């Protein structure tokens, strides 16, 4: 049996036998989760605003203006076409990337469209103000989460796979792909893929994202030249920052999709109030019942 030290005495709700309340998310986890969600959203949108000031990416120390890895441009046509070039391949992205309607509805030359940027108009300094404020918020909030998680045991519960989970890794992948979600005792803990994903986001993507952001600062490069070595130059760091942002978006999309698919209201109640319902398939074997009461 996995340890389920998170269960607290559940409120007497008179629920039917196969539903059990579990207190899953302590207040610090809930608050840092939502602050983090807000930070990621603002950082993404203000980041795209900043990107739009020079919508091209390069590798190395400097910008090789003629050979970008990615660029978003507009043509001289009337109306202009949006053209996106990725690794030498060109795509027509009119209306989305390169050229898209601005606030007045007229086509504007801009990398990402106005509904994806913060502020929505072209406003580099506005975007920078939002970005730096929420970058500080993300880092401080993340530090609080990690410290609390470390000392409360929450982090281990959330990201470290247990031995039996590692053994049944392949089976878990299959369950995940077929969207079969664990029930009963198994639902009390995070599954192995979930834990590994959170671990990658927490200990790889977010730290790399912060470091790549710092590597773009000329003052930070003076203080910590290893930042440039780490990313192979400032322009590479900018590219890494962009790619990791995309990976974080991918994580959020999958995360939200799984929240919806595995019981939207239960998950939302869990992250808002802490209380989560464990559903049990009714399998009338005496042993199961005993086990459940023990848990």
């Amino acid at each position, binding site marked *: 049996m996995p340890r389920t030290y998170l269960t607290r005495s559940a409120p007497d709700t008179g629920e039917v036998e196969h539903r059990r309340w579990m207190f899953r998310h302590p207040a610090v986890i809930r608050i840092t989760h939502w602050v983090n969600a807000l930070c990621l959203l603002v950082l993404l949108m203000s980041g795209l605003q900043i990107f739009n000031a020079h919508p091209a990416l390069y590798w190395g120390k400097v910008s090789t203006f003629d050979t970008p890895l990615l660029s978003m441009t507009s043509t001289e046509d009337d109306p202009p076409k949006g053209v996106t070039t990725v690794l030498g391949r060109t795509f027509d992205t009119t209306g989305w990337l390169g050229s898209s309607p601005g606030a007045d509805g007229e086509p*504007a030359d801009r990398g990402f469209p106005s*509904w994806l940027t913060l*502020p*929505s108009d072209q406003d580099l300094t*506005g975007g920078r103000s939002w970005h730096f404020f929420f970058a*500080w918020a993300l880092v401080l909030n993340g530090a609080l989460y990690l410290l609390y998680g470390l000392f409360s045991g929450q982090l281990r519960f959330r990201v470290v796979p247990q031995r039996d989970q590692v053994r049944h890794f392949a089976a878990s992948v299959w369950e995940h792909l077929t969207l079969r979600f664990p029930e009963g005792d198994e639902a009390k803990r995070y599954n192995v893929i979930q834990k590994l994903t959170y671990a990658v986001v927490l200990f790889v993507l977010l730290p790399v994202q912060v470091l790549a952001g710092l590597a773009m600062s*000329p*003052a930070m*490069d003076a203080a910590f030249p290893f930042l440039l070595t780490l990313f192979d130059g400032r*322009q590479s760091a900018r590219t890494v920052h962009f790619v990791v942002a995309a990976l974080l978006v991918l994580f959020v999309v999958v995360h939200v999709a799984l929240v919806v698919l595995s019981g939207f209201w239960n998950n939302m109640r869990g992250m808002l109030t802490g209380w989560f319902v464990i559903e049990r398939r009714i399998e009338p074997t005496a042993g199961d019942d005993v086990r459940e009461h023990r848990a």
Partner: protein
Amino acid sequence: MIQPPSRRSLLLGATAAAGTAMLGGCDRLGEADWFRRTLKTGEDANLFVQRLLLTERTLAPEYAQADISPWFKPNGTEDPPDKAYKALARRKFADYRLEVGGLVETPLKLSLAELRKLPSRTQITRHDCVEGWSCIGKWTGVPLSEILDRARLKSQARYVVFRCADTMDQGEDEGAEGDGTEDVSSGGNASPAMTKQSGGGEDKRDSGGQQAAEGSSASDDAPVRYYESIDLVDAFHPQTILAYELNGKALPVANGAPLRLRLERNLGYKQAKYVMRVEVVESFADIGEGKGGYWEDQGYAWYAGI
């Protein structure tokens, strides 16, 4: 028959509407004074922390000859429209004199030949534009500290202001025949030579800045020329030089001839081009709109270490 909207399309519509409202709300929030001040605390924190991390002598990375960019992208003003500047440029800046004044014991006037006789520093460094791109160039010039030491600062001295030749915003006055921008060019008043890639959309902050300029009496009829300011920590940094050479040749007009500031631990917009006068002050509150620089007056942060 009008089909009643499905639950899904209602939900999608509601989400889109909520998203739009949120975005509009964020825009309005971003324009509220108290909120803008709150956001700015992030940039204040950048200055505070970076000043803690960097000593006065910490050098920006320097690069090898092989790293020099084949083309050093000029940005902002690339050819100052001002008649006085054009006259200087025609005579290859033979009549150019750098003025050093303000809170100094000995005001100076230095020709290019005199500047070249002062101790010099050559550095291969990376230039980072606030827009996101970078170029590496080899700069040769006089360390600003050499000039300030000769002029001898008065005890009230706190900031060094660079007054430039290039007109940014037209006044009623003569003197310029077009406008341009310097080093930051994401704006509505960007120079026509700007790369289209950089997005020619309207920059709200710029138009706001212009309105503000129209509103204040000081700038009603005088053209607004580029200016910048740095504090004494940056002014006496060993890599802070007034450069007269780029890649071993006289500084081209597009890159700020005859003299430009190199401030290697900062973004490009701090590194004033076409420097005419170095002015030592106690406060920059009375200069321009009072924020310490042309782009600062348009909303950019005074500290540009990130």
